[in-house]
């Protein structure tokens, strides 16, 4: 562990058992699909078999006539929405697009697009009833890649869509390009003209899915008085509430969203799919309705992340990266909103590059509308830039880590947005990777190679609020509103225990529903341990202040004479006057009543995250199989609150990246049907495909957080695609520019079979 100026913490940095652990290892924890309510009925969703079709009519009368059917809804049952944008925390979405995505309007825009929903007496009967709904489709030619979508003669998803151009103006003609943005700085042409070497390549990536194991679900009960309760597995109960209020035109206060345990999200469980349908069905049949997706639905009808096309040209002069010209075009899916801007803003952020031009195109295609996926946009963009940097290092005869260190961004370096970096840890992280046993050990043997890559992610701050109640026995109940996907109950309880100077076990955290705690933005953007942690810290300070006042009252002294140290109230001059936290907690009634701390923050300084990865691979040139022999990740965590869960985030992100690099892809036929929409053929890594993933936690504290915490969840997925491609190049001498680098691609390219 690399540690810089780290204070001596008592709780932070330890590895206690998570509060929700026992329920999760015994099967008692309740996830969204585990909700059972009195009188609950089940539903099913009819989905478009076409990737692109005009919907001429939908006849639900036969289905409604079935004795088992209780309710049927289509887009016509949704109210007209206002032309507003909804900020879900990880991006903003136009309400009208969201409404058209949850139930198709006059067009089905991707295979799997919801067209109607049914509630029936059983899940089997609901599925059977879908056959009785007659939809008259006029199939249209689908557009399935950014390259096709950007052609002048491409079929249009929306005849009224114009391109928003860099100067803010709209294009004259309609287009599938929703937006074109540009970043420019320095003198690009002069830098290229003056370069020692220039490398230039094009790259292609495929749509991939977050692959959480729990399918989406939604259970809703709509009461006749217009109050709605929704139980769902979501990264953000408040975001779900805001979206439902907008889509259903209900006052926010009438909607209660109960966040159930969530079986993985990675960005894909921020948007809503089933919840509004369950609500409408419940309104119609007067009973609670549960909808769940099957795995095929999850692949075809939720939000994966973009594939795309990228072009990059980089220049080096005297070992310094002097110029970068990069163009990114990402698939947004059926509605605008790819993560192309995030990719554009991240990919050069590990470096100091004076001259640049970056173009970003947001392109609609007949595929599901993309959602966030762990550092959205950054892995794809790094796949392009970090491979070009590998080539530049070779051109400069430099060690790839030394080359990155030489060109590294540091505090004050300006990003392509013109914003200067605050204190960041890229240099320290490179150093940790370089000094690792892994990097210091030679790689030997035929067909083996080593690759490295860096990754950057902004991390998010946003809003969090918590309430902490002190009990008479000195224990504390912490009410928070951040979905716990990977141990944040523990990391928040630890920060409160640290602030109050009490044992971790004395803090009991609960994730509350939207009626029971103040607003919390989504668990996303790597923000929870950081931002909700800051709210917890504020709540702890609030309690501290009240304890000091109460002690002063008891001791009949001024508050200034009382200090709170190591969980104890102490009098400044009288050493005999001491009260432990628990002692004073036991005197609440006589010192002013129930003691509650409140923390409510807009966290503004998340502190960027950097990761540097080293990977060794072995390539079987005859079968094209790539085996990961060894993998080491070094990452700046600021301060690792619960190191085991920090390591877990690092390992999990790496392995998702390994899957993305080697096998995962949406495999479409020419009609726009995803042919591998199952865990059988959408090949996520299994335990047998991997070695242990070695982690090095670097700690360059974030000055914007009281304990120096930086978000850790997302950046680990950024470097693997490029690091593995660089390793495969090292092993084979061949540069793979298209993902996935599957056995098929490897044998076809190495043996010139295409």
């Amino acid at each position: 562990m690399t540690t810089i100026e780290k204070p001596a913490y008592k709780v932070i940095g330890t590895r206690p058992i998570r509060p929700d652990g026992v329920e999760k290892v015994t099967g008692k924890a309740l996830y969204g699909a585990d909700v059972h309510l009195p009188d609950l009925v089940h539903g099913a969703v009819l989905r478009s078999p076409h990737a692109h079709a005009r919907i001429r009519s939908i006849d639900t009368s036969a289905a409604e006539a079935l004795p088992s059917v209780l309710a049927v809804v289509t887009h016509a049952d949704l109210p007209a929405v206002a032309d507003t944008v909804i900020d879900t925390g990880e991006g903003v979405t136009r309400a009208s697009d969201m409404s058209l995505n949850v139930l198709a309007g006059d067009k089905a825009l991707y295979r799997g697009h919801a067209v109607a929903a049914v509630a029936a007496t059983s899940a089997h009967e609901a599925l059977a009833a879908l056959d009785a709904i007659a939809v008259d489709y006029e199939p249209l030619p689908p557009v399935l890649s950014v390259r096709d979508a950007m052609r002048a003669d491409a079929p249009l998803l929306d005849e009224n869509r114009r391109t928003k151009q860099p100067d803010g103006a709209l294009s004259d003609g309609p287009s599938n390009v929703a937006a074109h943005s540009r970043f420019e700085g320095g003198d690009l042409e002069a830098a290229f003209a003056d370069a020692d070497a220039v490398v230039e390549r094009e790259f292609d990536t495929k749509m991939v899915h977050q692959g959480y194991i729990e399918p989406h679900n939604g259970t809703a009960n709509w009461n006749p008085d217009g109050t709605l309760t929704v139980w769902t597995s979501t990264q953000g109960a408040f975001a779900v509430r805001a979206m439902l209020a907008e889509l259903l035109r209900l006052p926010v206060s009438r909607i209660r969203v109960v966040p159930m345990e969530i079986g993985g999200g990675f960005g894909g469980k921020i948007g809503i799919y089933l919840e509004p349908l369950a609500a409408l069905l419940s309104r119609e049949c007067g009973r609670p309705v549960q909808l769940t997706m099957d795995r095929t639905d999850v692949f075809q009808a939720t939000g994966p992340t973009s594939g795309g096309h990228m072009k990059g040209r980089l220049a080096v002069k005297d070992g310094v990266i002097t110029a970068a010209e990069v163009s990114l075009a990402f698939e947004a899916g059926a509605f605008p909103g790819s993560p192309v801007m995030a990719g554009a803003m991240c990919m050069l952020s590990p470096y100091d590059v004076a001259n640049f031009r970056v173009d970003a195109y947001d392109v609609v295609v007949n595929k599901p509308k993309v959602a966030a996926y762990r550092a959205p946009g950054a892995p794809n963009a790094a796949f392009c830039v970090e491979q070009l940097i590998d080539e530049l290092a070779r051109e400069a005869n430099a060690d790839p880590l030394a080359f990155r260190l030489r060109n590294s961004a540091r505090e004050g370096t300006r990003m392509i947005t013109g914003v200067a970096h605050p204190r960041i840890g890229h240099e320290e992280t490179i150093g940790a990777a370089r000094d690792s046993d892994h990097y210091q050990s030679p790689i030997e043997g035929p067909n083996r190679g080593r690759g490295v890559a860096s990754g950057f992610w902004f991390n998010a701050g946003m809003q969090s609020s918590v309430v902490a109640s002190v009990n008479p026995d000195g224990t504390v109940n912490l009410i928070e509103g951040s979905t716990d996907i990977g141990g944040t109950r523990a990391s928040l309880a630890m920060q409160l225990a640290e602030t109050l100077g009490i044992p971790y076990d004395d803090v009991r955290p609960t994730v509350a529903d939207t009626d029971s705690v103040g607003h919390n933005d989504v668990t996303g953007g790597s923000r929870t341990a950081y931002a909700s942690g800051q709210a917890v810290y504020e709540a702890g300070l609030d309690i501290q202040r009240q304890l000091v006042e109460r002690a002063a009252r008891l001791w009949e002294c001024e508050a200034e004479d009382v200090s709170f140290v190591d969980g104890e109230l102490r009098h400044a001059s009288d050493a005999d006057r001491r009260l432990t936290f628990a002692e004073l907690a036991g005197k609440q009634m006589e010192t002013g009543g129930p003691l509650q701390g409140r923390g409510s923050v807009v966290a503004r300084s998340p502190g960027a995250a950097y990761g540097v990865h080293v990977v060794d691979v072995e390539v079987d040139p005859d079968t094209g199989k790539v085996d990961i022999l060894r993998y080491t990740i070094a990452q700046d965590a600021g301060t690792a609150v619960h190191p085991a869960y920090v390591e877990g985030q690092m390992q999990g992100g790496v392995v998702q990246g390994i899957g993305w690099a080697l096998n995962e892809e949406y495999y479409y036929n020419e009609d726009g049907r995803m042919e591998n929409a199952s865990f059988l053929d959408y090949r996520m890594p299994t335990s047998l495909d991997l070695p242990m993933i070695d982690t090095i936690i670097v700690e360059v504290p974030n000055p914007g957080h009281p304990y120096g915490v930086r978000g850790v969840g997302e950046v680990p997925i950024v470097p693997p695609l490029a690091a593995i491609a660089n390793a495969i190049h090292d092993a084979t001498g061949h540069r793979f520019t298209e993902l996935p680098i599957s056995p098929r691609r490897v044998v076809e390219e190495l043996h010139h079979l295409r």
Partner: protein
Amino acid sequence: MPMRRSHVQTTLNGEEIDFLCEPRQSLLEVLRDELGLTGTKEGCNNGNCGACSVILNGRVTNACCVLGVEAEGASVVTIEGVAEGDRLHPLQQAFLEEAALQCGVCTPGFIVAAKALLDAEPNPDEGRVRHWLAGNLCRCTGYDKIVRAVLKASDAQEVTA
């Protein structure tokens, strides 16, 4: 409307029970929807993720690929039957200590599958653990800590045995 339902007698987590189910209902549906045992999870419903792992007549299998009616006369162990009263199984304890779960939805399947392994082979090595658990997908952890937890539990079993 109730379909034709079959009467099934089975031993579930050591207890003799009976239930009614439609022939088309999987054992997974029966456990979750008829018997209220929701610890067994659905991840894919086609035998490719292991989230619904149960031990059926001593062998670990996917409850989504078994019909409820097939449980007649069988013995079924689910995640709810792994701990003994308030004493966690060494695997459960190891999963907690090693932080081998993040979202936790695959965890019941992993613990049930790993229990079947340790019941059959008390001292597996890392390779064997990875091979045995290849039918269980986890998307959060990268498997590192899961494999460590299973190895730790196997050591712990040895100590207590």
